[in-house]
């Protein structure tokens, strides 16, 4: 089977062009397949045409993967901008449109930002999915109730510690969120991705020093699964998927309807993942608004 890549992460495309990618299929889902790279042990994703671009991701001209006959463990090799998976499929990346994650500058108009944050909060309250960071008013099990409590408590404490510039406490609370929650990418991870997206925006008034982010990235590896870890690791460096970038762009200089459209796209990610990320974004924005310019993390 021969498939064309429609678009792809610029770095992934460069690796393919240099014929230096080899690995195995790590996991298979309806809309994505993850490949584990021999060279750097990172996960790379091939996605169907319904998904957006993202770090380490190729978007293919294919609707679903279950007809490809691919299996976990199948060998993957690149050759001249083509990705060969077993003898089953061949992915040509020659015409793929390059995508690079570039976060827009932090919004400069504080008054508009205030309104946008309020809007996002209200919209998430109405349209966001419960069960993760957004608490279900009637949790269905004691497990869900306890998990919601822990998510709420730890995210609140993290925000307080960050606002107060208490570095060590903040690291502990952030790590307390990693791997916590339902879903393949636990809610705590998604929340942190949202938060890190904001603090990585150029010109964001709130500064998170490298050692803080580095510690999270290092420790997260043992605290969450490999797929979610890749997402957190990339977000620590400001690498997030296209729908999140589009939302940040809409916040930065978009119209109200662009903001709405972009927020909806984020909310539609996964089950509650989009909502969890959006709440992380809101937390990051509020943190910047309240503590930006006067607090940054200090080693206590």
């Amino acid at each position, binding site marked *: 089977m021969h498939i064309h890549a429609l678009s792809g992460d610029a770095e992934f495309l460069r690796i393919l062009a240099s014929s230096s990618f080899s690995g195995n299929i790590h996991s298979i889902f309806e809309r994505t397949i993850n490949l584990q790279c021999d060279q750097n042990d990172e996960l790379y994703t091939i996605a169907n045409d319904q998904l957006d671009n993202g770090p380490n991701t190729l978007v293919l001209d294919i609707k679903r993967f279950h007809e490809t006959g691919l299996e976990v463990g199948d060998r993957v090799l690149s050759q001249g901008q083509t990705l060969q998976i077993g003898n089953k499929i061949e992915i040509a990346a020659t015409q793929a449109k390059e995508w690079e994650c570039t976060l827009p500058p932090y919004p400069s108009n504080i008054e508009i930002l205030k309104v946008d944050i309020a809007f996002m909060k209200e919209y998430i309250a109405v349209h966001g999915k419960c069960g993760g960071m957004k608490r279900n008013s009637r949790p269905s099990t004691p497990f869900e109730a306890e998990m919601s409590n822990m998510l709420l408590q730890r995210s609140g404490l993290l925000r307080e510690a960050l606002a107060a510039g208490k570095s060590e406490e903040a690291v502990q609370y952030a790590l307390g969120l990693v791997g916590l929650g339902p879903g*393949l990418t636990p809610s705590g991870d998604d929340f942190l991705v949202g938060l890190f997206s904001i603090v990585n925006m150029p010109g964001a008034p709130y500064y998170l020093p490298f050692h803080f982010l580095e510690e999270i990235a290092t420790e997260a590896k043992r605290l969450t699964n490999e797929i979610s870890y890749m997402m957190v690791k990339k977000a620590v460096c400001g690498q997030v998927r296209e729908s999140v970038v589009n939302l940040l762009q809409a916040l930065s200089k978009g119209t109200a309807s662009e903001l709405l459209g972009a927020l909806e796209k984020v909310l539609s990610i996964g089950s509650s993942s989009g909502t969890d990320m959006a709440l992380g974004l809101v937390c990051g924005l509020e943190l910047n608004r309240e503590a930006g310019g006067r607090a940054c993390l200090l080693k206590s």
Partner: protein
Amino acid sequence: MSIKVVIKESTYFDSVSLMSLSTKANQIEGVEQAVIAMGTEMNKEVLRNVGLITPELEAAKTSDLMIVVKAATDELCESAYVGIEELFTKKGDTKGKSEIKYATIDSAAKSIPEANLAVISVNGAFAAREARKALENDLHVMLFSDNVSIEDEIALKQFAHEKGLLMMGPDCGTAIIGNVALCFGNAVRKGNIGIVGASGTGSQEVSVRIHDFGGGITQLIGTGGRDLSEQVGGIMMLDGMKALDEDEATKVIVLISKPPAPSVEEKVLAQIKNCKKPVVVYFIGGEETAVVAAGGHFAKTTKEAALKAVVLAGANEDELNKRPLNWPLIEEVRAKLTPEQKYIRGLFCGGTLCDEAMYLAMDTYEDVYSNIQKKPEYKLKNLHESIAHTFLDMGDDDFTNGKPHPMIDPSTRIARFLQEAKDPSVGVIVMDFILGFGSHEDPVGVMLPAIIEAKQLAEKEGRHLEILGYVMGTDLDSPKFEDQVQKLMDAGVTIASSSTNAGLLAREFVAKGV
């Protein structure tokens, strides 16, 4: 109590599947609690906190899937786990039907191309935008949300009109489309009568009465309460009439509304002239002359509207049980009431049912007060205190601001009922009990203790308190119509067979010197 644990090593499911599996696992019979989650340290901490951790779970790795089932016995745990395994097996089977939640109307419309209707119930601030999106996706819309601006309503209805789509609402609570009741509605027979209604419970009542007379419904199209206002101009009612006129299955059309704006009434009546099918018009408090002049069939009450519709649709009037008023009963009640007990107090969940009873009372009495009175001098100023004959629409914003509708939560009506029952000038308290989709699961049951208390109080004070109940529902509704009626009768409540009869009986019970 027993706990079963299964660890699926290096197993990944996407988040949507995991959440869905978890929800379904908790619905399996015998399961007290089921957890399906990745084996991360933090998720294990949650298990520890809720007392579900086991050594096996402690050993799970971050890439493992943990399945935990808690049930009363080992056997139940085992059988529940078999059920969960089945869910995992079925997960890949895309042929079966399943419930999918979509985050946006766009994604739902793309995934279900055969869908042609969207029911929208979101915060009013976002409702117009969602409705527009649905219309852009060529979906008819039923918009349950209120607090939508009149400008948005006009724009949406004009847009729908241009696209040949129905825009039911905003604030549209009742529709029956393709024999499926949406939001609030009753289970009625399929038939050849189409309804376009600007008032929810009025439309419900007419559909229920049609069913009672042996007829049935093709479609019940709601318009939203403001459709027949001067500004909106009846766009949806006119489009609804046109749709039913073109619908082969519909033989008779019924129009229901609170009093429309005069200019809109003119437009609607003008369209009747162009209809190929007979049109019955029930505009509460409306005038017969103009309707008849337009070629329509005038109805003064909901019951008359239903009766005329079934007869026009082919029923033999002589064979119908028209459920006439029980005059011996009226005489009996009159004899029990003292001269001081001369007032009606109506406590209604349904706005149109309240309106109908109020208009029937106004035919006889001057001093009829209400929170929905059109005459300013008889509009209640203090909602907490009744004057003379008082009819309260307890589903109106006056009573529901920040509280659920009394069809769902009857607590406000219960308190008011007890207050009215203490008033020695009250002869009869009339109430509706609405059955069907969206309503309280036992509307009579929740009122019974208050009814019994009120009856005892009146007896202690040596007076008879007449309580008149109307159960709006059909033999197909849930909870069972007969059971609800029986409960009321057992508590000494007099039963009215229709909204119209409830209004007439209440009026006649307190009539003096006749």
